[in-house]
């Protein structure tokens, strides 16, 4: 599915300094019943964000007006558990374009890259620095430069480079998806399939 191209993102950020945030928290299973990709942002972090009676939990960061922006900063091992791509959809649909953490679960990272959310893995030290900077000043802005693979705390200029597969990087910069690529080599796939052992 098409998504907005990603090049340079400059934004304030929302801090979620919890570790092992699993995709069941990002979007609980009972909200996976849609047959179209619409409205998932409303249920992002549903059970952390709302009480049973659907009123907001005021102590949760998404309900705190002090913090906003297109970057979500999470604790280590972000996105573990279920393969549900709905988690990445919910993050995108809510308005985030980038998730920063010191460690990502595999499938979640893949899913993000496939739907236009950039996962940026930084060192545990830099992650702590980002959390502290945002806590000290919620207006702290970050610049995520995909072309140069660099994330910078704007106020101090402190920065770190991050890894991304060159193929995936090109895709994100251009808004391409893998399916276009695969459809273009369908004849090769057909030929290959004739010689598969199973």
């Amino acid at each position, binding site marked *: 599915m098409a998504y907005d191209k990603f090049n340079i993102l400059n934004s304030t950020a929302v801090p979620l300094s919890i570790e092992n945030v699993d995709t069941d*928290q990002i979007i609980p299973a009972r909200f996976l019943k*849609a047959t179209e990709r619409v409205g998932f942002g409303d249920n992002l972090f549903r059970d952390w964000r709302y009480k049973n009676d659907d009123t907001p939990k005021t102590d949760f960061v998404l309900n705190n007006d002090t913090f906003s922006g297109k970057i979500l900063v999470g604790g280590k091992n972000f996105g573990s558990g279920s393969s*549900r*791509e709905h988690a990445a959809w919910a993050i995108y649909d809510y308005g985030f374009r980038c998730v920063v953490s010191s460690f990502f679960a595999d499938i979640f990272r893949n899913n993000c890259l496939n739907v236009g959310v950039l996962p940026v893995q930084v060192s545990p030290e830099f992650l702590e620095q980002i959390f502290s900077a945002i806590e000290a000043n919620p207006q702290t802005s970050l610049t995520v430069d995909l072309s140069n693979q660099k994330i910078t705390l704007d106020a101090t200029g402190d920065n770190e480079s991050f890894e991304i597969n060159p193929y995936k990087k090109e895709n994100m910069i251009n808004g391409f998806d893998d399916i276009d690529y695969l459809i273009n080599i*369908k004849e090769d796939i057909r030929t290959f399939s004739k010689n598969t052992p199973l």
Partner: protein
Amino acid sequence: MKKTLFDKVWDKHVVQQIDQGPDVLFIDRHMVHEVTSPVAFLGLKNRNIKVMYPDRTFATADHNTPTINQHLPVQDPLSAKQLDALEKNANEHGISYWGLGHEKNGIVHVVGPEYGITVPGATIVCGDSHTSTHGAFGAIAFGIGTSEVEMVLSTQCILQPKPKKMRITINGVLQKGVTPKDVALFIISKLTTSGATGYFVEYAGDVFKNMTMEGRMTVCNLSIEMGARGGMIAPDEKTFHYIKDREFTPKGAEWDKAMDYWQELYSDDGAEFDKELFFEGNEIEPMITFGTNPGMGIGISKDIPTAEAIGGGAATYQKSLNYMGYNEGESMIGKDIDFVFIGSCTNGRIEDFRAFTEIVKGRKKADNVTAWLVPGSHKVEKAIKDEGLLDILEESGFELREPGCSACLAMNDDKVPKGKYAVSTSNRNFEGRQGPGSRTLLASPIMAAAAAITGKVTDPRTLIN
């Protein structure tokens, strides 16, 4: 060149290597269910393309389905819509569809092996992280997202960077009362939920060699819970015996040809792994979890560890214990419970029900416990009845429900209420996994049985005759 089991299977399926990019990996078998497929089918519709190889694609309904009164229309309109969408999509694209009420219906990772869709040396994917289950047969099997489901439907391929390789070897003999589930929970407790992230795991050693195929499935199923994309075990005579003559396995000359390939599927002596871990089988105890991820597990005789002993984020650890209503240093034995759930793609097979029944036989279910016994498929359900297990279970005060994922993820009505404790044979104890506010203790079928009988957390070894 010396190759690992994983390399042998992976390399056979690479259509193309993208320069500095991922591999284009051919997928032999694609399993589809109602929750992660509708948006993928919509993508095909928008591109005006058909499923490339419908005969490599299999659809079953499991995540959303009710586990009582399956002959009646599904009450939840959203679930019903999703199930309808899968049926329509399957029919439109000529895919086998085993919907609600179909004799082959069941949990995708239970029915795959039952009907021989799962074979050694295959690449198998599904929009579900527990696809790792099929690695028990020496297949490369892993969960994918919906965009990738769309890729496989439209081109039978996905783009994947080749993961690193880890081997986990456990030799020795398991103690009485220690099941494959305990072996898996033990490994995860050692590695944490991210310890194998970026790796594909091979399980080796006596403990896995001596396991039944169903036991191997339980272990491989839980590979994702240590962060691994998948886990696999080299096929052996037990594997070949299990799959022979199942509906979708090769027959006659095709079988012989496949066997030539399958018999080469093992890690060569001296093949290199990026990481190797070794444990001793006799060190493993019956396991139970006390926290909100599958890595937070302990041997039943141990106390809940301190944050200090665990290392890492103390705040996250405390949040987890608060959610569970537990404290550091407490014993799990004797903790109150309210629900028992046996089922899921982890422990919803016939051997699991046999083990559960063996413990409850001649005893009565505790009054304070609500028990949900949910077979993984109709085939399992039928075996429970045919083998006389149902009579024993009913005598002990249990009822059997109809197949589905059920309370493992509580997408249907099988929800554990807020604040209540469930001993579950499923795979995840995340916050709210079994219903908003629910608290899950992951354990083996016999630990679940012991809890169901005594009404509290109990060392199952005390009930083994």
